């Protein structure tokens, strides 16, 4: 009876069996990690906008405070996108004729909305409320990052559920004094944990992790 297989197949076949196990495990790990990549979460992906509005310039440069435009951030679920009127408050005086601002003037003239591309876009079944956070010492930059350094705004964090849970489970790691909430350049102190624990007590912070907190 002639041999069917070459000697080398012995090692090959043995390797293949145990190899299979590792491939399976690797595949699982990979699928998980893919979901964390910014390709999926679109984090750190600057979106181009109809009007080249630069937060870096307005916030970083001119020091405009968040709430000047995002008026309802502490009142309602949505931070609020400023109406054209708000832009024109200043730009009727300065850069009044600048071509880059034509869309804005056009908007006011023709009474049609400016079209912005959504940057922080949660799924429709997730209900996030800004006021509930900023009123309890969660700073803008905690989630949105250094807006003052973003010419075009990008999404700083993954916005994955695990990311939300992380803070809801350990708020003390992230809280800051209320007066610092809008301080975009805020740096947490060395004793953040101590501070955080104290703030949790003082602000009566009770983050919920039950489902209907965000899903309804």
């Amino acid at each position, binding site marked *: 009876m002639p041999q069917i297989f070459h000697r080398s197949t012995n090692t090959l076949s043995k390797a293949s069996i145990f190899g299979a196990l590792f491939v399976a495990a690797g595949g699982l790990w990979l699928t998980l990690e893919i979901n964390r990549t910014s390709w999926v979460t679109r984090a750190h992906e600057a979106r181009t906008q109809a009007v080249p509005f630069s937060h870096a310039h307005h916030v970083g440069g001119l020091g405009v405070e968040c709430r000047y435009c995002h008026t309802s951030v502490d009142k*309602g679920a949505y931070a609020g996108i400023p*109406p054209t009127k708000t832009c024109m408050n200043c730009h009727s005086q300065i850069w009044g004729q600048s071509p880059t601002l034509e869309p804005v003037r056009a908007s006011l003239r023709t009474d049609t*909305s400016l079209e912005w591309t959504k940057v922080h876009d949660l799924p429709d079944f997730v209900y996030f409320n800004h006021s509930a956070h900023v009123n309890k010492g969660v700073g803008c930059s905690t989630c949105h990052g250094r807006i003052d350094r973003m010419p075009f705004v990008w999404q700083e964090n993954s916005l994955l559920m695990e990311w939300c849970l992380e803070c809801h489970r350990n708020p003390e790691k992230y809280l800051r004094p209320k007066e610092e909430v809008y301080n975009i350049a805020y740096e947490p102190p060395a004793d953040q944990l101590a501070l955080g624990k104290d703030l949790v007590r003082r602000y009566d912070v009770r983050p919920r992790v039950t489902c209907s907190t965000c899903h*309804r």
Partner: protein
Amino acid sequence: MSAEEIPAVPVDFAGVRRRLDGTTGRRYWKSLEELADSPGFLEFLHREFPEQAATFEDPKGRREFLTLMSASLALAGLTACTRQPAEKILPYVKQPEELVPGRPLFFATAVAHDGYARGVLVESHEGRPTKIEGNPDHPVSLGATDVFGQAHVLGLYDPDRSQTVKFYGEVRTWIQFRTALREALAKQKGTQGAGLRFLTGTVTSPTLAAQMQTILAEFPSAKWHHYEPAGRDNTRAGAVLAFGEPVDAHYRFDQADLILSLEADFVGSGPASLRLIREFARRRKVDDAKPVMNRLYVVEGSPSLTGAVADHRLAIRSSEIEGVARAVATGLGLPVEGGTIAHVDWVAPLVKDLRSKGPRALVIAGESQPPAVHALAHAINEKLGAVGQTVSYTAPVEAGAEDHAASLKTLVGEMRAGQVDLLVVLGVNAAYAAPADLAIAEALDKVPLRIHLGLYEDETAERCHWHLPEAHPLEAWSDARAADGTVTLLQPLIAPLYGGISAHEFLGGFLGRADTKGYDILREHWKGQWPGADFEKEWKRALHDGVVKDTALPSKAVAVTLGDWATTAPKPAGSGLELVFRPDPAVHDGRFANNGWLQELPRPLTKLTWDNAAIIGPGTAQKLGFSIEMTATGHATEVVELRYRNRAVRAPIWVLPGHPEDSVTVHLGQGRTRAGRVGNRVGFDAYALRTSDAPWFGSGAELVRTGETTKLACTQDHWSIDQTAHKEAGRRHVVRAATLEEYAKEPGLFHEMGEDPDPGLSMFPPHKYEGNAWGMAIDLNSCVGCNACVTACVSENNIPVVGKDQVSRGREMHWIRVDRYYQGAPESPDTYHQPVLCMHCENAPCEVVCPVTATVHSEEGLNDMIYNRCVGTRYCSNNCPYKVRRFNFFLYQDWTTPTFKMMRNPDVTVRSRGVMEKCTYCVQRISRTRIDARNEGRPIREGEIQTACQQACPAEAIVFGDVNDPESRVAKLKASPRNYGLLAELQTRPRTTYLAAVRNPNPEMPHG
């Protein structure tokens, strides 16, 4: 905007945009974008043209689109790594002061029903009205709503609403219409408007009335006719009979210890029903401390919700009720003839009871009874000394009050005689709803020029030369009076979606003021009404409050004069079956036929959806050998030919316990042919049998068998079909009830009825709930089964309409249902209503069996349902003893119609295919309130959170609150001895509990 701007094909993007910057100034962003961009939108536009309407009426095309959509969703789900497509944000150009994005605003206005106003608060999200609540400051609404009030939201966004000016069915512009009208009027000027006729429904709008007067002054010979299909002719005539003038009677149930209803269905109909239900129910909230309540006697010829809550109900043919009324009158010593002796065992103790209660008693007669009965009721009340106590009278609220039937008859006569050159129909669907004997259709054809203003291109529009789209009550400025005369200013919540105009703006055209906006017309009128006063202040207040103060009519003294009507006995009813007409409990006189929410609403008592039927009593059914069989695809029943006065319709048989024998009830309002995609060809048209001389009942009907069977969609199996269910319901003490006597004697008796195991009887220690723990108590003694909670829930929670086929298969989606149980003999049973929603069990059977934790408990004791986690095994539903869970077997939500996107509550996820859903205790409302409270660093106040069902309930039967707070109303109610948990023996520990029903029968009365 002025009429010229309104484009011929109005729903183009620019048009919508422009209109949205209109009067209300509020504009919504995202949806608008979608509205314009969605490819479905253009095809939607095309479909709206009538020539293609037919293709669309077959739902296939749309279904395919939906399923394609869901299939693509499926693929999206397949891989976890899907990126979201980029979405747009459209901010305001000028943001309104008061608006905070994501925070709804509420505006006070009113919706009219049969002409009478009910004050409402409309919830508006970035300019989109999404929900209607009652206005607590309104004397008739008192914060409650009925099914119709809720359904107006869907009516507003209905894509089938008329959208263009039409001439002979061809699209025309407003200018073209104006020209035509101008010419026609010019002709009429010459003849003083001899050939000019107006036809409206019941009008209570002071402004409209004033406009009509001016027009009639311009054209002295013109005439204004009224026709309200479910109007109040008998009531009016009754008053004239008794007092010699048409006065309105106003009842004070809060003052009445005893109420005798002569077929008066105050729960189901009537301009003041919301208020009356509230007052009635308040007198029935007994507790063991003071076991006292009012007593209600009902005599009726067709089972009604009022009869269902009665302590004593006498079910006899409508024609026999007058005899009873006369007997009662005689018994009370009034010189009245013709009293029957048939029901003396019932009448005698009743009379005794009436005497003993005296001025704290009250007799009310139903519209369906002839004038004489109304007159008798007035006479009896006067005799009892009830006037000023439980009843008072005012001048009629209706403008130009006259007998509608007669009015229409005259009009038709004149049309036939060719005396009418120009007929103007405002809203009334006369061609459909007119009595059959008038044969209005061909009479109409004799009128040279017919103009119709209406929300829909309905049967009447079809027979008119010109059809003009009317603005929806939520789109236009107007005013209207409530039952007590109180005026509400109607303000628009959104600019007309489909380019309609209001009746005011339309009538302006007859005074050469076509360009005047409704807003200005209204202000002009009221400037005249408030001389001296600071107009702007008055105006603002009226708008803010939703009522114009002290506009309720003053009561006036009137005296009954007993005429021949009292002394001459009524002629005996004819032989054969008696045919009884009633407006449909959901689609009313047919005007709501295209409203899916209402079509799918299980009718009270019958629990039928998407159909009307020839309803007969069990005895009659047995005699004639009819039976109904429940199948997996609906309730199979026989179709009969219903013959009546040489006319006939084919109708399915339905058997209803407590229906008088030898009598058939049919509901008006179905069998429409031009209602729209939803309402066309649903049920049969009962108007085809209705004659002007006998609007509500008549004898001589016959049921002719056809041997043909059909299937009806009924949401609750029927014990006249299935005695088993009846027996079991009793054995299981699903509804716990007792008489007041028994309860007073032994308050604890309800607990003996079923075991209530001790929480400790568990292998695991009971879970502790800190902070707020939400719970609900439902008072079965207050619930009148009106279904308001069901529609309110549908509107609040974006619950889809699934259609007759799916309902027949047991796949309706309602989160709350009103179960109906009977006790006693099928001929005269006691009826109980039990609203059933998610019980939010602390030991929830559904949660344990869910493999993916898609339903779990929140720390506040809510049974959360997470749609986006659900994979749809349906195990939770199987394991739910209350069967309150609903499953999306298909993609039920209409994802294609843009206006529906605007309609939905943005705070509630729109569920997709393949997921389970159920009552959430309106968690979106809880969250909103909690966040506000926590932001302000205060606890949530008692009563601060109202669930949608609770808020709508006119009877205040539903109470929601924090069971951890001993001071809360709900906690107090749960402490009552009447409180019991449904199926508590299963140790589910429901957070929703019930207060047992207590009836207050007259001990001297034979049962029934």
